[in-house]
Every structure is written in structure tokens, then in C-alpha cells.
């Protein structure tokens, strides 16, 4: 038995909202935070197409200038505003599996090859029935996504599962819609890294 090594993952179970994803954790912005305000509206579906009514969605993103609030991101020429951590949490709705985040459109972050990535939000999905975190990203339909390093590693016919569609009937804030789903031809692309 190997006692040393990473602690194994276990499901968050049905009761995580006692501690994680308090009301308000889905709002990443405060007054004075710069950038384009956006709302991401999504739904999480299981393999039978049924809404997952107790999923935990967490997001991590750069600010509007494209910088992460983290010591490894030392691009000090880009301001980090007070009031924006870049981290949000939401529990999917017990009624219909929907979730939403109020945030800013992230800026472009460099990739290791020196190019700029397309704007994206990093996503982890957990919850009852999920023994380990499912990693994915959300991109935006009105951005230039063609040269993104990560999207380029995804089979072309599956890239659409990662791209939130702008809903043209809303402007302030702009609303983007995404469906996260398990199984089937339109299963969300999940990542390993």
C-alpha cells in the first residue's frame, strides 16, 4: 500500500452547499472593477439529458487586462483591481440544473509558445456522483478563437462544446449561454493536463 503521494479525490456529495457556493459566490465583480461586464448562463446535464440539480461549478479567470491574481503572474504592467479575485462558485439550481456567473470578459493570457490565448474562463465541475473534478474551459462566440493553443488540441467537430454563444437580445450586460453535458455526440470536452 502506497501511503505517500497525492491524496485521492472523493465526491463532494449532495451537501457541499453547506460550505461551498454560498449565495453571492457567483458574482465576481464589485463596483469599480474595470472591463466589460458579462453574464454567463449555463445548464449542466447528465448522460440521460436530465439536469444535474446539485452540481458545483467553479471558475477561475484572468481580469479584463488578461492577468491572473497569482504570484506566478508577474506582469505588473497590467493592473490588478481591488474587488476582483477571478474566482467564483455556483451551485446548479435544484429546479433545473442552471447556473450563472456575473463577471467581466477576461483578457487574453499568453501561452507558453509566446502567443496570446483566446479569452476564456477555466471551469471545474464537481458534485454528487462525480468522484474527481472535471476540468473544462468556456470560450466566447464573439472572440477570435481560431488560433488558440488549447482549442487547437481539441478535435474540430467538438470545439463548439466549449464556446458560449452570445445572446444578442441582451446588451448590458452581455449574456453568453453554454450547455455542459455528459455523454453523447455533444459531450463537453474535458481536459487532462
Amino acid at each position, binding site marked *: *500500500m*502506497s*501511503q*505517500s*503521494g*497525492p*491524496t*485521492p*479525490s*472523493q*465526491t*463532494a456529495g*449532495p*451537501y*457541499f*452547499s*453547506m*460550505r*461551498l457556493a454560498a449565495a453571492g459566490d457567483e458574482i465576481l465583480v464589485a463596483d469599480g472593477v474595470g472591463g466589460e461586464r458579462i453574464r454567463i448562463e449555463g445548464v449542466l446535464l447528465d*448522460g*440521460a439529458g436530465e439536469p444535474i440539480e446539485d452540481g458545483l461549478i467553479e471558475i*477561475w479567470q*484572468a481580469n479584463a487586462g488578461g492577468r*491572473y491574481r*497569482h*504570484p*506566478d*503572474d*508577474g*506582469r505588473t504592467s497590467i493592473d490588478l483591481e481591488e474587488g476582483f*479575485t477571478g474566482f467564483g462558485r455556483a451551485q446548479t439550481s435544484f429546479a433545473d440544473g442552471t447556473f450563472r456567473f456575473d463577471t467581466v470578459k477576461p483578457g487574453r*493570457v*499568453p501561452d*507558453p509558445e509566446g502567443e*496570446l*490565448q483566446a479569452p*476564456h474562463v*477555466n471551469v*471545474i465541475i*464537481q*458534485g*454528487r*456522483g*462525480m*468522484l474527481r*473534478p*472535471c476540468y473544462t474551459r468556456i470560450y466566447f462566440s464573439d472572440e477570435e478563437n481560431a488560433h488558440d*493553443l*488549447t482549442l487547437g*488540441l*481539441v*478535435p474540430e467537430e467538438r470545439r463548439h462544446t466549449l464556446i458560449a454563444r452570445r445572446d444578442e437580445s441582451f446588451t448590458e450586460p452581455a449574456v453568453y449561454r453554454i450547455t455542459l453535458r*455528459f*455523454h453523447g455526440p455533444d*459531450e463537453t*470536452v*474535458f*481536459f*487532462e*493536463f
Partner: protein
Amino acid sequence: MDETVLRHLAPLRADDHPPFRYPDYRSTVARSPEKDPVKIVQTLSETTGPGLVFSDLSEEDADLTTNAGTGSPAIGERIIVTGRVTDEDGRAIPDTLVEVWQANASGRYVHWRETEFPAPLDPNFIGVGQCLTSEDGTYRFTTVKPGPYPWGNHPNAWRPAHIHFSLLGPSWGSRLVTQLYFEGDPLLSLDPIFNSVPEETRGRLIARYDHDVSIENWALGWRWDIVLRGHAATPFDSMEDDR
């Protein structure tokens, strides 16, 4: 001038974690990916993370026997749960948020979901806590030992006593949600969630009784160390700072 560095994360090993799909735990069947994950190149998006941005905690948050704020202590076997949070190379992870939630001593959660289990709630126990790790990576909670409880996975199914733990760690890739179990629990070998972890590594989820942690006339002590995903042998590249 601060430098931007890309600290490559250590590769994931197959046996360190349960599979996404483990049919004995029935809910995993419809809630797991069907296709293999797509391997991506690590960027700042994966190697940074929110784990260091929280600091607004009070020490009271780490005592679940009193943090209901009623002035009366929770009912149950008072225990101390402590350990160190390190990376795979044994380096301490300080200042990182550790969040916990658990059932009360009777096996009942304080949650609005309905349950058919007629166990009492304890008005002096809310079952949630949080703390930051210290300089040497130590976390420490005072709580009551959670009770086992039934669940609907299969006939006469009971979850072993457990405490849910959530850690953000230093990077997005180090995110960990897991459960602490107690050494000697007879329900462990019957539990599909525990058994979903490969046999070689299951023991990493079990807290051991530690008499050095116990406090005379006060509480019994349990020790459980947590290891988060670390960095690759060649840990980082500098990135040009003019972008």
C-alpha cells in the same frame, strides 16, 4: 521586477485517484464523461489558481463544536483533527484555505434536502468550518465525530463516518475535494465511494488516532495529512515580461 513563471504541474498518475465512472457508486454512471479527456498543454490558466486570495477568516471558524454561535457546545464525541498540507515533494503549503463540512454526531446534515433518516439535528452544531494552513502547512479543527448515515445507493447502504474536505491549493490543477475517514471503521470495506479509490492508495484517506494530539480531559486526537498535486521535476520556465 516580478517575473512571470510557468510552474509545470507533475503528471497525473492513474492510480492516485478514483475513475470518473465506478458503477458500484450508481450516480457516477450518468455523471461521468464518456469520452477520454483531451490532453492539453499547461498554461498560466492551469498553473495559477485562487488558493492564495482568501484571508478573511476568524479562528472561531475552525471550532465546529462552538461555531454555531449559540453559546452551548455541540453534542457528541469531541475530537481534534489535524495534519499537514504538503505537495508531492513534502513541501509545506502555507496560507491555503481548508474548508470542511460534515454530519453531526447522529449522522444528520444541516441541509434543506429532505432525508428519510430519522436522526436528530443538534441546534448547537452547523457542521461547517474553515481555516488557513500555518507556515508549516498545518491545519487544525475541533469538532465532534460525525455519525454514519444511510443512503440510497443499494439496500442497507451506510456511509462510513467522514468529514468532507475542500482545498484550493496553489494552482488550478491542485484543486482537491475529498473525504477524511476514521481508522478502524467497519463500514469502510462496504462503501463504494471509499472503494472507488485504487486499493494501493485508499489508505491515504484514513485518519489515524494520535495520542499526542489528544488533550487530557478535553478531546481525542486524529491525524490526517493531505498531499496536493505538486510540480514537475523541471518545474518552471520564465516567460518574457513584455506581453
